[in-house]
């Protein structure tokens, strides 16, 4: 057991570290291959189209080098198709998330995770590399493969969150998950790096490298991952549940739920101190899909996340385009600048997770951050044509939007999947994570279409107003939870004062 200096972390073993790193890098590799696809779009659309003709000039010779590929008449149509592929991917990803969470709670998480990683790697290989080697260009084939890729990729997120939820208890969850949820942003950076370094050999090699690396990741996960402390005989809560840092009784309650609700709906009595987990030898039952949907907090957080992921993924997909379109900056500059949004998101997720750990409440942190995010969006939409100021504003916006987004998709999903109401049926983590992220992805998928529509009809300024409205929408959805949590905090403070 490596000695960890910080007292906050001393409860963790090397198994915790490996589980953290393996799940982290699983999702890094997945997001890297997603980013690869958006970074090779220009090369792919060049491959699919004949050379553009200027006026009456004859087409370039020889034809096999310049004119022979006619999947699309010009690059504009190819770009439209690539945008459609993005939407197809997000929708099938969303559907897949609902399914794979349910599967993940019933089948060994390690198998599902490994299957998702290796399967999607194989599909990406066929999509990007094999079709190019065999010169098979067919839009229906591409669509089918991308639907399949969405379904397979969706197996990964619920599983990694569930494994993380198994290893890291509620107490340090906000911080650990905040740090951990940087995986998507790290994946973006890795993907951009991998794609740019092999793109000169041809776009098929960008797909080849990312898919082979992803496959290798799946193999390592298969041999190295412990899905739960139970597998090596450690119990969950004795390791991580009762942290010495917080002695406040409140911190041991589930962070998102409220007692009145649970007493009414589920008839389970609420204890102020969490009981140890159920005995290890009793196999836990898995929760049903609808049952998971009805858990307190799942629906509001899902809807809030749908609004938020729409804004977040719009930044992921459209930011470089906006920067080069609106400010006339070069594509490479725009790509480099857009990294600051990810940086802001990483810091935001970690800091806000830490704050919510110490507060013992997540909803107030989210609400404040989202309110500030609306301000940040107004500020960003009026950014002057200066790269430094723009980068700073971008990082601030990332901090307030990416932060809450990371928190809902990881720490809060894990809270929801391990809450009190689930005492009898423990295996709800993957299902709940799947529901939250799946609903979010539906929002994101619809958003991609809406953003392009609003942009073409009304201009970029209205797109930002749309983002502001959507951020406001996510505040509205968490308001009921916010009121409950604030009221509970108020009551606890009163009780504490009376005791003193």
């Amino acid at each position, binding site marked *: 057991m490596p000695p960890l200096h910080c007292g906050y972390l001393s409860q963790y073993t090397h198994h915790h570290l490996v589980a953290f790193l393996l799940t982290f890098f699983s999702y890094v590799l997945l997001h890297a291959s997603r980013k690869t696809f958006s970074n090779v779009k220009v090369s792919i659309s*060049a491959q699919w189209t004949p050379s553009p003709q200027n006026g009456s000039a004859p087409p*370039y*010779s020889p034809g096999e*080098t310049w004119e022979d590929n006619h999947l699309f008449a010009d690059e504009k149509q190819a770009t439209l198709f690539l945008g459609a592929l993005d939407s197809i991917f997000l929708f099938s990803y969303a559907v897949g998330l609902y399914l794979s969470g349910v599967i993940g709670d019933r089948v060994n998480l390690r198998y599902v995770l490994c299957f998702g990683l290796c399967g999607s790697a194989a599909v990406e290989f066929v999509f990007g590399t094999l079709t190019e080697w065999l010169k098979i260009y067919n839009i229906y084939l591409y669509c089918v493969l991308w639907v399949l890729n969405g379904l397979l990729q969706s197996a990964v997120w619920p599983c990694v969150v569930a494994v993380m939820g198994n290893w890291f208890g509620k107490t340090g969850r906000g911080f650990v998950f905040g740090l951990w949820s940087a995986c998507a942003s790290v994946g973006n950076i890795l993907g951009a790096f991998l794609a740019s370094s092999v793109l000169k050999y041809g776009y098929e090699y960008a797909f080849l490298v990312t898919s082979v690396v992803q496959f290798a990741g799946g193999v390592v996960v298969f041999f190295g991952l*412990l899905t739960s402390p139970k*597998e*090596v005989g450690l119990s969950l809560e004795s390791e991580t549940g009762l942290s010495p840092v917080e002695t406040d009784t409140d911190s041991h309650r589930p962070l998102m739920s409220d007692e009145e609700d649970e007493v009414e709906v589920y008839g389970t009595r609420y204890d102020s101190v969490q009981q140890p987990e159920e005995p290890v030898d009793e196999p836990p039952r898995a929760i049903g899909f609808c049952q998971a949907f009805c858990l307190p907090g799942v629906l509001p957080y899902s809807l809030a996340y749908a609004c938020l992921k729409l804004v977040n993924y719009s930044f992921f997909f459209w930011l470089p385009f906006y920067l080069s379109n609106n400010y006339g900056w070069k594509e490479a500059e725009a790509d480099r600048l857009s990294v600051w949004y990810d940086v802001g998101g990483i810091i935001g997720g970690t800091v806000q997770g830490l704050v919510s750990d110490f507060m013992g409440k997540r909803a107030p942190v989210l609400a404040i951050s989202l309110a500030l995010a609306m301000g940040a969006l107004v500020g960003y939409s009026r950014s002057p044509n200066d790269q430094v100021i723009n980068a700073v504003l971008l990082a601030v916006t990332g901090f307030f939007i990416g932060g809450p987004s990371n928190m809902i998709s990881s720490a809060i999903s894990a809270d929801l999947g391990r809450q009190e109401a689930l005492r009898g049926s423990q295996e709800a983590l993957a299902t709940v994570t799947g529901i939250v992220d799946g609903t979010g992805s539906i929002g994101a998928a619809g958003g991609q279409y809406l953003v392009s529509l609003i942009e073409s009809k009304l201009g970029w300024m209205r797109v930002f107003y749309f983002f502001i409205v959507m951020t406001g929408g996510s505040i509205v959805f968490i308001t009921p939870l916010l009121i409950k949590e604030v009221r509970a905090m108020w009551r606890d403070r009163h009780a504490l004062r009376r005791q003193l």
Partner: protein
Amino acid sequence: MKAGCSQLQPVVLILIFNLCFYGSFQLTGPQVCELCGGSVLNGSEVGKFCASSAGRINGRCCFQNNNTYGPERIIGLDLSNCSLTHVEDLQEASKALMIDLSLNPLVNISDAVFQGFIELNHMILPQEIFCPGGNTSWEKVEVNEGNRICQGQKDVCNQTGQLSIECPENSLCGPYGPGFFECSCAENYHGYKCLREGEFPALQVFGPLGASTVVLSFLLWFTQRRKVKPL
């Protein structure tokens, strides 16, 4: 491994193509030489040219064996006085240096017929027919005894004053027959639209990757999963 296959495939295809093509070529001979009866006359321009370059006359063609390997190529084509009203496909003679189409009732010839005729340097046409690619594509154009003679094919790429020909990125302009140019990939570039540069170093990438996967898998299995009790 797969990368090797992808490079091997075109080679195999070309081999098969060559076998078929030259197989039929050897049996029947180029059809362009049989477009009309008779053979190249000794006194004609093509005949003189053929004699001076030690060619072999067969039908309307003058062949030259370029010693090293491969089949003979047509260096001269004499289709004069052939009653041709139109000319469509002369691709078999695309390496020709001289073509004679005089004394034919031709109305016009598409420029595209001579696309790819890089070495064509001397043409004799009926007076009514303009030189392919226009006068600007030739060093010297003259009308003599009812014939139009086009001499010295110009390289379109190096012309000044003309509309400048710009090939797309990573490719270079090269001559491709009278009035035509081709854009061939610059050094190190290849593939469709010359988008690919160099060869992918498969071994340097996948060797270390495979090795580290094996090592990491074993290491993690040893430290993590070795003592797993089946639940």
